[in-house]
């Protein structure tokens, strides 16, 4: 009946299935509504509610919980992870992942400590630390953005390599002598101002900064756009590759800052520092509302997620629950957090 002539190889029709429901599921609902309404719709808000609830329960369970000292400890402990999670949020917003942050923490710490030990000042140490972070982030970013390798694979490779380099550089020794600026260096990482640990101040400032970045800067807007549809962002003239490289550098440099504060606090550096921290950081980020499919970012999510993870740890111990169970509850809460979001999203439709 019809006469068919040879067709060309290829053509476009919907090569990818389009499912409204699936799309809706995959990207968290975010609307430009301001005020209470908008806040209540976000994951960080509900995690924050969970935190308040746990804190309330704990204040009855243990007298030690609501003490100033415990609050000091909790906030300090979570702050390192919170700082790293801020950077991770940016990476996850572009639908990427950075598995190398734990190793990088170790590498930054070692390089920083070696520089200080060699007698340099704290500024030089800071520069060395941030430079290490920037280089690692740059390598990750270039391999992902330009060479187009999968972020999971690149950063998994970097996880192994950074740790190995840290071992080689430190010759596997622990370093706990930080040269002339030892005192000021250790104060920066471990001291406090107005009764609040310095690292918490850093976290607060960085969170405010990221709040501003995500809401008011072009870079932030571009990162979110890339997470939503990298192809469209590219076509709109956004330099997608460069932005992605910058995102991985931002993530690494957040880790660099965390490393600087962390070594100052602990007072010693080993290359084993940060082993498996990537999983904690990712868990905190996801609990804080990041979506691994990209396109969603909350500046407040990172500290709130990190706070919940630390709170669980602290509460279980204060409540006298065996330490063996601790990881169980961290895992459980991680799954519950995404479940919550899932339910919330379904209900919202």
């Amino acid at each position: 009946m019809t006469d068919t002539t040879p067709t060309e190889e290829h053509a476009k029709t919907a090569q990818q299935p389009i499912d409204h429901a699936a799309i809706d599921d995959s990207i968290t609902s975010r609307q430009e509504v301001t005020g209470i309404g908008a806040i209540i719709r976000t994951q960080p808000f509900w995690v924050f509610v969970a935190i308040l609830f746990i804190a309330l329960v704990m204040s009855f369970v243990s007298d030690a919980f609501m003490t100033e000292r415990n609050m000091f400890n909790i906030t300090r402990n979570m702050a390192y992870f919170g700082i790293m999670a801020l950077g991770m949020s940016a990476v996850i917003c572009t639908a990427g992942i950075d598995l190398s942050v734990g190793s990088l923490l170790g590498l930054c710490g070692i390089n920083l400590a070696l520089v200080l030990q060699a007698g340099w000042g704290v500024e030089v140490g800071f520069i060395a630390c941030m430079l290490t972070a920037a280089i690692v982030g740059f390598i990750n970013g270039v391999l992902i953005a330009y060479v187009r390798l999968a972020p999971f694979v690149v950063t998994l490779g970097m996880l192994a390599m950074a740790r190995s380099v840290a071992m080689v550089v430190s010759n596997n020794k622990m370093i706990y002598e930080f040269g002339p600026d030892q005192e000021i260096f250790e104060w920066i990482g471990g001291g406090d101002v107005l009764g609040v640990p310095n690292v918490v101040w850093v976290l607060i400032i960085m969170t405010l900064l990221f709040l501003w970045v995500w809401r008011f800067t072009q870079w932030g807007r571009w990162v979110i756009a890339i997470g939503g549809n990298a192809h469209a962002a590219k076509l709109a003239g956004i330099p997608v590759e460069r932005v992605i490289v910058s995102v991985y550098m931002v993530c690494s440099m957040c880790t660099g800052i965390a490393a600087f504060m962390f070594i100052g606090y602990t007072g010693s550096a080993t290359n084993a520092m940060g082993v498996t921290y990537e999983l904690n950081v990712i868990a905190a980020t996801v609990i804080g509302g990041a979506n691994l499919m990209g396109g969603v970012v909350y500046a407040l999510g990172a500290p709130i997620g990190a706070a919940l993870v630390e709170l669980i740890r602290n509460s279980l111990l204060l409540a006298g629950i065996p330490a063996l169970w601790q990881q169980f509850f961290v895992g459980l809460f991680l799954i519950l957090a995404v479940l919550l979001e899932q339910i919330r999203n379904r209900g919202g439709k």
Partner: protein
Amino acid sequence: ESHGGYTFALVPKAMNNPFFDLARDGCYKAQEEIEGVTCEYIGPGEHTELEQIQIVQDLITKGVDGIAVSPSNAPAMAKTLKEAEAAGIPVITWDADLLEDDKGLRAAFVGTNNYDIGVELAKLVQARHPDGGTICLQTGGAAAANHNERLKGARDTLAGEDMGEAPGDMLDGQGGWTEISGCPLITNDDGNVAVQGMTDILAANPDLTAFLSTGAFTQWFDNAYRGAAEPYKDKMASGDLTIVVADTLPMQIAQTKDGLGNGLVGQRPFEMGYLAMQMLKDLKDGGSLQDPTYTGLDVCTNDNIDSCVE
């Protein structure tokens, strides 16, 4: 084979642990001092059992002249050491030993008796609190055999009775001592986790009598530990609270000097590394070894802290 001398491998549990660094230094010292001995210090980067076994296999394949190993997983290591036996490579164990049944596989053990470390730590606690009280124990990697031995040593001593197979049962009033809920604390050899755990436990239990850690990780992170212990300095000085920790690394000595700890029980890793080489050389030269060879323990209190480690 190398220049007529011997190459002996010293295999630690993990290379990223400062304790083993001291053993390595001893090993290199032996290389300098003992004629015809080359020290090959190699082990897993991190504490993984399988990797250590693989490394030993590779050393056997490579044909080193002797192996001194600190087995992470004793039964598994024993199996691999059968290959060394077949290949005619002499083996000694250091730091940690094989299980009783497998001891025929190694010529000798050099190190400390882990059980004794626990005993000494417990004695330090008992000396300060003869009437007992509440205690929290802190341990290292999950199911690490040496830490479990130390826990048992401590528990047996505190209880004054046998608390069962290592790591022993939790103290529940035996000998006047009770372990509080939430303990023992698992640290996975992470200094940060160790400090956080100690901080929380001390905060949650203001009346705690003693805190006993079977590993140096508690005090690795100098500042973090100092920050955590500082609020309890007075209580430690007045004898209301006791913190004792295994090992005598330099920062630990300094902390104890400053009154931020009440006792240390140290092994002598440097000596272990040195002696391991010495013993392998003797073995090769046809000598006989004393088994086990204990390198002894350094027991430090606030009083003898300046002199307890030579």
